[in-house]
């Protein structure tokens, strides 16, 4: 009994146990077994897929960024420029223009939710809000499906940087986003006691915790225990270094932009390298009911352009872009008609999202809007379709079915269809 109380310093109990199991399995065998295990780990790492969602809270005007209508009544003052791909984008996205051969613009998004909360939920889950079922968000779904590719991951597989993302729904709180600020600072990480004592506390806690769980008082209690286990893992994990974005060289930090979003994108790259399956980085401030053009030109677009371009190029240079899917979107877009305050209001009927990496064919625009930007021309796509396509890029089968807690089977991405032309 007492040996449970003394584990080597700096190791979580689970970690310690796995070492013990490994040690006994290898008794009497040669070192070559260890070598082949390492090779296996490298293979796993190589096929490891990840996703980075750049979430534009507030609903960015895609007509001023990715699908310009210069010279029309609705078009606004921005000009379109050519890019490294076969598409044109806003003149205020010059760095991204050099990366567009990696990215595809889906210009034929058409959705129905033009309220922030409903739109955010819908774009994150593929479902409209439903009083009776809590649907899991992208991050929770992807983390849940891809966790087996990263058996050694000790930090959360779903991290939300500088924003809230959406919850894990019926998958339970152990799949909730791990929220950090864009500087990667994790609060309350400093342990106040040594690991021996922490383990003793853990045993006391588990004793109280387990007897209460056995009393059949609801599933939330089991989730609480799982989250506690993950929290213990974090406290002792060397992988937490991935959050220390400060350790990056100055020129790298400057490449991404020394603002919250820039550093958040850099953090996302570090987390993907460390094995995190899904990272969401938030950039708010797109709810431009007034003075939209000044805000975009002087404030939002320079920040976005620099960070997104640096992230794309950096992932490519490190050989990670092939296995990392980048998604850029907000809850909806903004009215083509410019309102009396030189702003644009909410518009979900015709807009764009941008995707790239993970085998997606870049340098192209899929679908189109009509001349004044109010309607989609040709086949419209939805949140479900984007989600299905991203899952496909990550190697997740679209036949995957979840069973909600009440036994209702649900297809992944709400049975969304692949967006035609995204994959070669």
């Amino acid at each position, binding site marked *: 009994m*007492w040996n449970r*109380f003394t584990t080597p310093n700096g190791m979580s109990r689970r970690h310690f146990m796995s070492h013990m199991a490994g040690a006994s399995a290898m008794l009497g065998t040669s070192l070559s077994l260890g070598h082949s295990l390492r090779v296996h780990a490298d293979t796993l790492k190589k096929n490891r897929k990840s996703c980075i969602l750049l979430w534009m*809270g*507030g609903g960015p005007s895609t007509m001023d960024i990715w699908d310009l209508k210069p010279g029309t009544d609705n078009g606004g003052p921005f000009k379109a420029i050519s890019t490294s791909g076969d598409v044109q984008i806003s003149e205020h996205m010059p760095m991204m223009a050099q990366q567009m051969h990696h990215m595809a613009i889906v210009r034929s998004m058409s959705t129905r*939710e033009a*309220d*922030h*909360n*409903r739109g*955010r939920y819908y774009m994150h889950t593929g479902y*409209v809000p439903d*009083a*009776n079922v*809590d649907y899991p968000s992208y991050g929770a779904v992807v983390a849940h499906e891809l966790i087996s590719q990263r058996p050694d991951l000790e930090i*959360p597989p779903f991290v939300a940087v500088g*924003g*809230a993302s959406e*919850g894990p729904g*019926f998958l339970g*709180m152990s799949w*909730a986003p*791990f*929220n950090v600020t864009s500087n990667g600072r994790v*609060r*309350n*990480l*400093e*342990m106040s006691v040594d690991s*021996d*004592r922490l383990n*003793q*506390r853990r045993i*006391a*806690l588990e004793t*109280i*915790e387990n*007897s*209460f769980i056995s*009393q*059949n*008082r*609801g*599933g*939330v*209690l089991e*989730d*609480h*225990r799982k*989250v506690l286990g993950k*929290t213990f893992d*974090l*406290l002792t994990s060397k992988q937490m270094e991935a959050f220390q974005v400060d350790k990056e060289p100055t020129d790298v930090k400057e490449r991404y932009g020394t603002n919250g979003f820039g550093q958040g994108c850099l953090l996302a790259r570090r987390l993907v390298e460390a094995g995190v399956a899904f990272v969401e980085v938030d950039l*708010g401030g*797109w*709810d431009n*009911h*007034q003075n939209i053009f000044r805000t975009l030109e002087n404030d939002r677009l320079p920040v976005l352009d620099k960070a997104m371009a640096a992230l794309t190029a950096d992932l490519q240079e490190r050989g990670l872009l092939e296995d990392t899917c980048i998604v850029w979107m907000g809850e909806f877009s903004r009215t083509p008609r410019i309102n009396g305050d030189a702003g644009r209001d909410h518009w979900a009927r015709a807009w764009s999202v941008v995707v790239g990496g993970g085998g997606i064919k870049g340098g192209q625009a899929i679908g189109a809007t009509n001349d004044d930007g109010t309607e989609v021309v040709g086949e419209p796509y939805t949140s479900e379709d984007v989600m299905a396509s991203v899952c496909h890029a990550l190697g997740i089968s679209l036949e995957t079915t979840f069973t*909600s*807690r*009440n036994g209702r089977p649900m297809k992944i991405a709400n049975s969304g269809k692949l967006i035609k032309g995204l994959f070669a």
Partner: protein
Amino acid sequence: MMQTSKTQTTNFFAGAWTFLALVLGVLGFHQASAQEESAKVSRRVTLPPQTEKIDKAIEASWQDAGIRPSAVEEDLKWCRRVFLDVIGRIPSFDEMSVFMKDKSPDRKLNLLRRLLDEDQYTEEYANHWSTIWANILIGRNGGMEERSLTNRQGMQKYLRDSFANNKPYNTMVHELVTATGSTKPGAENFNGATNFLAMKVNEENAVQATAAVSKIFLGLQVQCTQCHNHPFNQWKQQKFWEFNAFFRQTRALRRFVRGTDDIDHIELINEDFAGEGSHPEKAEIYYTLRNGIAKVAYPVFVDGTAIGKSGYVSEVNRRSELGNLMMESDFLDKTIVNRMWAHFLGYGFTKPIDDLGPHNPVVNIDLFESLAKDFRENSYDLKQLIVWITLSKPYQLSSKMTKDNESDDPSMGELPKFSHFYTRQMTAEQLYASLAIATQANRKGNLEEQQRRREEWMRQFVVAFGTDEGDETTTFNGSIPQGLMMFNGDLIRAAISLEPGTWLNQLSTGKGTPQEKVQFLFIAGLGRKPRPEELTVAAQILAARKGEVGGMLQDMWWAILNSNEFIFNH
């Protein structure tokens, strides 16, 4: 001026652990089980007719659904629930003793009367409900944003005073909807109620005021209909703008610090509205259909009642008219009854609770409507409503599910049947106040300093969404950041501190055996004695600490505070 809280001077132990055996006796642990006790007692209890009505309706619904309720929970557990839900924290050791010593059949009612009517709890009651309502009215982050027009202190002062005086709910709503004056305490014409609308009227033609007032007080979700008729909602775009027209005389004026351009506070006023066609005698507004056609709208209430079209405040004060029309609406009654029911039972009659539209299913609809009517007929007295609900059968049931009611799980998407208590996590505010009462931590400084520290602590959990509407969520939701805070955060460090003068220090250096002290910890935190396996762990930890009782108590208290049994209301 409210009086200083008694809890500040309540000594959690009152020297109790030196009489531990006696106290355990008082709490019923050495006698017949508390459950038998409560069964014996409950037969003679007199209940308000509304409570009997609730019991009858809910029991009938169990029969219809073919399920059987869980057992009635032990009285001491009910006591913990009531403290958490009514005044926002767990009971102290003393308070548990007082409750258990009361052998009257009406001891539950007696406890409610103490919490609701006695001066020593007035401030905690008012603080608890003003926190809840400030979060509803202006959000968790309201007033803390840069260049905010909201004065959170002003909002809270208004709410605290309202709840301390048990202001009738309808009066409170009328005041919030029609308020004029300054947002900041101490400013000329101070009226804290103005903070509700201060940031919701100037921009986007007051659509935020429209959405907030209809959702919070009438349970009508109209925000989507601003731009188009919504397929899932009976509200049409026309109705949205007719409701919106009530707010168009209202302006939030910036008042500056003398001689600077720093905003000192906001003054909410009504001024003549010329209308968008510049005919103040018939001040119309326009909105655009999705097909581009412009339509006109004048103030018309949700039930179709139109008021005068004049934009002159002296002829028609639109917000005043709105306030009066709201007072007549039964949506007003239903929305608050639903909100309060959900507060105590975990789920409302509808889900979400602030959507009473015809598209949304309602459970126990007859009971719901009848309670709403009772509430109106009893002068919108929130304290009475609290008594009706907390004495009712569904609120007294155990959270332990049985084979006969496992299917009643609203977290699985089932409609709630209230056949057992739904386990739920404490809010961050409840945790903070509970730790304060259980450990005497964070009691330094005057009331204002304590409140400031509390708000600072709360802010770590708020995550904003980056929209103009100030949407936000909390990470105090059972996820890892919360776990880390409970493991290592300052609040927990203070709670388990052994510094001289702390309560844990007093416990560890006071009389009693280590085992008695552990027993005390379990009763203080969880309202029950430790189980044998828990005492065994404590003994092992004591050995690992080489007999140092203080260190062992620290570890056990840390484990108790981190346990599900502590952080959940069950």
